[in-house]
C-alpha cells in the first residue's frame, strides 16, 4: 500500500501541489486523473522520489521514503516498476538488453536464468520473438509493452504508469489498460496510473482520484464517477473525448438508421430559404 500525506510542491512562486493526500491499495489499479497542468506528473514524480516535495510524506507500506537514507531508498526503488509516457527505453540496447538491464544490475542469476525470465515477461506482454530488435525498430504500442516488461521483470511491489495510453490508437490503448490491470491482480501489485483518458478511467478505474489545479477534488471509482456532483470533474468529463466515443458507440448500437438520423441532424444548411419552416416563407 502507498499513502501520500499532505504533499506540497512549488516551482518558484507557482504552487503545483497544494497539500495532496491519498491512499493507494495493493491489488487495485488506482488512477490519478486530471487535465494537463493539474500536477499529475509532478505528483507521481514526488511519489517515486524523482522530485523531492517541499513538505509531506510518501509512505511505502508505512516506510516514509523521504526520511530513509540512500541505501534504504534504493531498496524501495528496486521494488518499484515505472512505465514512462514515452517508454524511456535505452536506444542503444536491444529489447532483450533493455529488459535484462535490471536483472544484470541487481541479481546474481546465471545468464540462462536471466534470459528465461526476460522471455517469460516478454511473452506475458505479448512480445515473443522481438528480443533482438532495437527501440527504433518497434511501434509505439510495442515500446510501451517493452516498458511494462522492463517494469515488471523484477517482480515489483509497486507499479507506476505515466500516461500509458498517450499516443496510442484506441485498440492498443485498451489492450495496454487490460494488461496493466491483469498484472496488478495477478501479482497483487499496488498500481498507480496517471491519465487524462476517460476511456481508461471507465475501463480500469477501480479507484479514481481527480486532481484539479494541484488539489485533490474527488475520490471514488469508475461506477461512481458519472454521478459525481463535482463541477470541475463534470467539466473535465464533458470536455474529454470519452463522451464522443460513448455517442459513437450508442449510434453504432442503433444501427445505420440512427447514424443517418444523427448525420441529417448535423448537416449544415446549404440553402437557408429551403431549410426555413413553411410558415416563415409566406
Amino acid at each position, binding site marked *: 500500500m502507498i499513502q501520500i500525506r499532505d504533499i506540497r510542491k512549488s516551482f518558484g512562486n507557482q504552487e503545483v501541489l497544494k497539500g495532496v493526500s491519498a491512499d493507494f491499495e495493493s491489488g487495485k489499479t488506482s488512477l490519478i486523473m486530471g487535465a494537463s497542468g493539474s500536477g499529475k506528473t509532478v505528483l507521481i514524480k514526488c511519489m*517515486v*522520489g*524523482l522530485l523531492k516535495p517541499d513538505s509531506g510524506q510518501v509512505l511505502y507500506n508505512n516506510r516514509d521514503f523521504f526520511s530513509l537514507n540512500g541505501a534504504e531508498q*534504493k*531498496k524501495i*526503488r*528496486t521494488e*518499484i516498476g*515505472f512505465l*514512462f*509516457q*514515452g517508454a*524511456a*527505453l*535505452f*536506444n542503444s540496447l536491444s529489447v532483450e538488453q533493455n529488459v535484462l*538491464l*535490471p536483472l*544484470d*544490475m*541487481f541479481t546474481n542469476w546465471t545468464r540462462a536464468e536471466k534470459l528465461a525470465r526476460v522471455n517469460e515477461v516478454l511473452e506475458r506482454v505479448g512480445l515473443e520473438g522481438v528480443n533482438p530488435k532495437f527501440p527504433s525498430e518497434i511501434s509505439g504500442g510495442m515500446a510501451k509493452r517493452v516498458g511494462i516488461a522492463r517494469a515488471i521483470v523484477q517482480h515489483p511491489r509497486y507499479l507506476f504508469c505515466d500516461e500509458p495510453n498517450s499516443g496510442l490508437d484506441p485498440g492498443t490503448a485498451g489492450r495496454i489498460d487490460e494488461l496493466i490491470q491483469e498484472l496488478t491482480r495477478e501479482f497483487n501489485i499496488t498500481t498507480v496510473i496517471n491519465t487524462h483518458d476517460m476511456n481508461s478511467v471507465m475501463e480500469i478505474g477501480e479507484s479514481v482520484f481527480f486532481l484539479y489545479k494541484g488539489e485533490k477534488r474527488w475520490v471514488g471509482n469508475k461506477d461512481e464517477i458519472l454521478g459525481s456532483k463535482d463541477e470541475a470533474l463534470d467539466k473535465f468529463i464533458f470536455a474529454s473525448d470519452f463522451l464522443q466515443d460513448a455517442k459513437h458507440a450508442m449510434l453504432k448500437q442503433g444501427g445505420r438508421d440512427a447514424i443517418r438520423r444523427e448525420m441529417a441532424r448535423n448537416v449544415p444548411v446549404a440553402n437557408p430559404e429551403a431549410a426555413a419552416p413553411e410558415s416563415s416563407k409566406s
Partner: protein
Amino acid sequence: MHFFAHFGQYLLMIRALFVKPEQFRMYWRETLRQMEDIGVGSFLIITVVSLFIGAVTAVQTAYQIFGNSLVPGYYLGWIVRDTTILELAPTFSCLILAGKAGSNMSSELGNMRISEQIDALTIMGISTEAYLIGPRILAAIIVIPMLVAVAAMLSIVGGYVSTMVSGYVTGGEFVHGLLTSFKGFNVQLMIIKAMVFAFLIASVSSYQGFYVRGGSVELGQASTRAVVYSCILILLSDYVIAVIALN
C-alpha cells in the same frame, strides 16, 4: 552566483561518483564500451592531425632556424621532439578530443536526460552519476593518454617525413636530434597533462549533458558549452601545469 551554483553542483556530481557499484561487472562493461568509443572513434582524426602538425612544425622550424648557419641541422629533430612531447601532442590532441569525444558524451547524456532514460535508471535504483559518468571519466583517463602518446609518435614521424621531402636536413641528422638530450620527465609530463585534460573533458562534458533541461535546442547549447568550457579549462590547466612542473 550562477558560476558558484554550477561549481557546487559539479562538485556534488564528482562526489556522487564514489559509491559502491550495484554490480561491478556492469560498470566495467560500460567502461570498456566508453574506451572503445573514445579510443577507436577518435583514432583516425588524431592520426591525421598529428601527422600534419608534426610535418608543419618541422617545416616552419626549419624555415626559422636555418637562415642562421650557426645552428646545427640536428637541432630540428630536437626541437620537433620537445615541442611535440611537451605541448603539441597533449594540448592539441585534447582540444580535438574535447570537440569529438566531449560533445559526443554531452549529447548522449543529454539525450538520455531529455528522453527520461536517466530517470528510468534512477527509479530502478541505479546510482546514475556513478554508472553513467564514472565509466566515461575512467575510460577517458585510460584511453586519452594512450592516444596522446600515439599522437606524439606520429607527429615526430610526420616531422621526419616532411624534413626528408623538403631536404632541410638529412635523416641521420634528424634522428640524431631526436636522441639528443632526451628527458624522460618530458614524457611523464605529457602523460600527466593528458590525464588531467582527459578528466576535464569527460567530467565537464558529462556535467553539461547530465543536467541539461529542456529540449533539442538546449541539448545543442549544452554540447557547445561542453566543448567551449573543456577547451578553456584545458588551456588554463596547461599553463598551470607548465608553471608548476617546469619552474
